[in-house]
């Protein structure tokens, strides 16, 4: 979504859960934002997928990670690309969240200013839980729902007291209970909604995140089933037409065949065998990750190619810095001399070698 190249001036554009106030002020929001982020890239999920252990990542992130180590980065269960399953539900949650995020942040601002007056007591209650440390974060999510059940009833009336008319029975119902009201076949009203407790509230919060799909629910019996149907209609699975690219065992292939694979997708075939293999590998990864998005969010092949090109350029420039060996030697002559001198003085020392290889200047500490 965001442009890939960032300079510091753009660092304000880096979004993270701490954009939201701690849960003593806005219960659950920080945790919500946190849980909609890929644990690898720390950004909102792009094409979220789950492994067989249930952990969720961006498709491209986990494909990259699996290519270096075939395990789930969180629980370390063995995993491979065949275990990757799309998670369209998560994708639509994230999409809604991404579009509503700034709006919610905007809503929070005035609230923070007001917080002296109306919400004082609920805030005071919540603030005896210690502010976040990330290790506690997960555990506290459950606490939050408990305390917020008490705290929220005081808070929410201030925020959304809006009344709406039920499209079915024309009764006036508070906006926040409209979904429950409709789900129950126009039987539940204000009083019932408030007695339905934490569960009802949670459900309603989620339906808010999902958009307003709840409004179309009619039959009380078929409510659940309908919801599922709706999901399907809303974003039909994209499996239909395109299949993911299979993995290729390059070792048994001749150069020509690898090049053919590349031309098949309209990719350049320049560079040596290794370059071609790397290019094709990356392409398969990008292509398959793209398929894990819902069709509406997919990138065009051109966009993918551009991404591949960008990746390759970054790769090349990194290698390029050592291609001009003579100049490099000249430039670093003194350093080489110093290192040689050092190496002679000491017994061959692994650490100084490796440090030199990675381009770090070793600071002499033996003076």
């Amino acid at each position, binding site marked *: 979504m965001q442009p890939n190249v*960032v300079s*510091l001036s753009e660092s304000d554009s*880096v979004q993270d*859960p701490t954009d939201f106030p701690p849960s003593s002020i806005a219960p659950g929001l920080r945790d919500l934002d946190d849980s909609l982020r890929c644990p*690898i890239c720390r950004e909102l999920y792009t094409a979220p997928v789950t492994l067989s252990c249930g952990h969720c990542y961006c498709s491209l992130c986990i494909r990259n990670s699996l290519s270096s180590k075939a395990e789930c980065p*969180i629980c370390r269960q063995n995993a491979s690309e065949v275990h990757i399953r799309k998670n369209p539900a998560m994708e639509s949650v994230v999409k809604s969240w991404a579009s509503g995020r700034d709006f919610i942040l905007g809503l929070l601002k005035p609230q923070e200013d007001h917080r002296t007056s109306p919400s004082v007591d609920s805030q005071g209650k919540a603030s005896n839980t210690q502010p976040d*440390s990330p290790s506690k974060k997960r555990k506290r999510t459950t606490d939050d729902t408990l305390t917020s059940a008490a705290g929220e009833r005081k808070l929410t009336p201030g925020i959304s007291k809006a009344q709406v008319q039920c499209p079915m029975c024309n009764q006036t119902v508070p906006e926040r209970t409209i979904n429950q009201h409709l789900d129950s076949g126009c039987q539940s009203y204000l009083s019932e909604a408030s007695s339905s407790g934490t569960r009802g509230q949670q459900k309603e919060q989620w339906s808010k995140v999902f958009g307003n799909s709840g409004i179309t629910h009619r039959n009380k019996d078929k409510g659940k089933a309908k919801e599922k149907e709706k999901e399907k209609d809303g974003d039909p699975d994209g499996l239909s037409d395109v299949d993911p690219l299979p993995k290729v065992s390059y070792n048994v292939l001749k150069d020509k065949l690898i090049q053919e694979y590349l031309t098949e997708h309209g990719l350049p075939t320049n560079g040596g065998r290794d370059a071609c293999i790397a290019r094709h590998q990356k392409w398969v990864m990008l292509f398959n990750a793209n398929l894990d998005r819902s069709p509406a969010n997919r990138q065009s092949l051109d966009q993918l190619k551009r991404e591949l090109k960008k990746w390759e350029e970054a790769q090349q420039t990194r290698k390029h810095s050592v291609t001009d060996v003579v100049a490099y030697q000249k430039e670093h002559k003194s350093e080489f001399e110093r290192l040689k001198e050092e190496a002679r003085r000491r017994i061959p020392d692994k650490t100084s070698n490796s440090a030199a290889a990675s*381009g770090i200047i070793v600071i002499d500490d033996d003076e």
Partner: protein
Amino acid sequence: MSEQALGSATALRRLMTEYKQLTAQGVSAGWNVHCWYGLFAIGYPVTLTLDFALAEGPISESDFFTWEALILGPKDTPFEGGVFTAKLTFPSDYPLSPFKMKFDPPLFHPNIYPDGTVCISILHTPGDDPTMYEQASERWSPVQSVEKVILSVISMLAEPNLESGANIDCCKLYRENRAEYERIVRQSVREQLGL
């Protein structure tokens, strides 16, 4: 250094996010994070002035791939009272590969190489195992973060892992003559502080 500057955009974004989170969380979590360009310190709740001078000036992208961390010696250890500088060097494929951490000046500790490089399992990829004692489960994985590593390092300062020693002399001393080890550490802490 220029090689590091060309680290992938993903790595850069992830680093910026972590940095932002570290600085922001520092306040809310009651941690003491001391921060100015690419430089931050984590310590146990000891009072330290909060100083957010991030706005002090733009840093080039290359700076984001080397951080400096100030670590306070944990309480009730011989390192107490010390302030240690460590340099974190991030690879361009971070977070797929772990970063490197090096104390400068080096610390006298069983798990720190004489040149200052920290030897801790959380910073090793599952592939390399210099000491053959580490469980795969405690190795680096892309979901680890600077914060978690620093926490591990702080607890390592308090409790050395003698099974995978990096400084053999120090290991030996620690095992055989703990009092002398503590004396040396305390003395070096004092020297570093210029006392």
